[in-house]
């Protein structure tokens, strides 16, 4: 079973890298980019075959290590 985790900065936390990307896009004449937020994408292969148990496991991983919940949100997708 595979888990895909998206980690993003919480709303309101300044994202200087996202801001830089936005400016770079504007520099390349991509108009109409209102906001850019950048984050991390992590893919984990699990031996667990039950989706609910897997989600609990991965959620624990996010809380303990993968995300810092002071500034980051995470979103888990379990793929069979």
């Amino acid at each position, binding site marked *: 079973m595979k888990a895909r985790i998206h980690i993003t900065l919480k709303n309101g*936390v*300044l994202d*200087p*890298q996202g801001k830089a990307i936005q400016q770079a896009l504007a520099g390349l004449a991509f108009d109409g980019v209102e906001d850019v937020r950048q984050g*991390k994408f992590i893919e984990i292969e699990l031996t667990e075959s039950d989706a609910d148990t897997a989600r609990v496991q991965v959620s624990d991983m996010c809380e303990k*290590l993968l995300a*810092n919940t*002071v*500034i980051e949100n995470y979103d888990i997708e379990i793929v069979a």
Partner: protein
Amino acid sequence: MPVAVIVFPGSNCDRDVAVALETATGRAPAMVWHQESALPACDLIVVPGGFSYGDYLRSGAMAAHSPIMRAVIERANTGTPVLGICNGFQILAEAGLLPGILMRNASLKFVCRDVDLRVERADTVFTGAYAQGEILRVPVAHHDGNYFADAETLQRLEDGGQVAFRYCDTGGNVTPEANPNGSINNIAGILNADGNVLGMMPHPERLADPLLGGIDGAPMFDALAEAIAA
């Protein structure tokens, strides 16, 4: 009593801080590998700078979960002074010993230069040899030194006098221009509520030798040496 310096894979200021500690205390600190589960007898724990685990994932995140950190947290909670410098600060924040987090510098660039710091608390075991409001010149060298805490935490830090150092100009004014990394309220170092854990981005150990261009960092190690000798 000896001092313990925690060494992680990727630590690289461990030797520098050991030199400063040995100069101040007259004896070499114990270098403790991160995979140890127990600390030697010690009255001061130092978590040095560097790039533990390559700063991969987030600076300090993986080191914060090393076996030795359980022992460090335990000792911190029972009052042993713990000093985290640079990556050490990032690790202490990730380990929950200090509030907030160090984010990517606002410039997005690594910055290595001398900065001026205003001493906001001169009544701690770390800062007792400085005067309140004294201005120190010490270097920073980091990519992720942009201190952030949510509004409530920040209020608590400010109200509780937990800000130990702020970036300032040569006249001691806390200005945006004097802020090398975008830290909120120009925060360069913070204490825990009990005042026995200090995390700071600047490197006092790097200017503790006149041949290297300054000694403003030395009083911190002298104060600690005196405190643990007592």
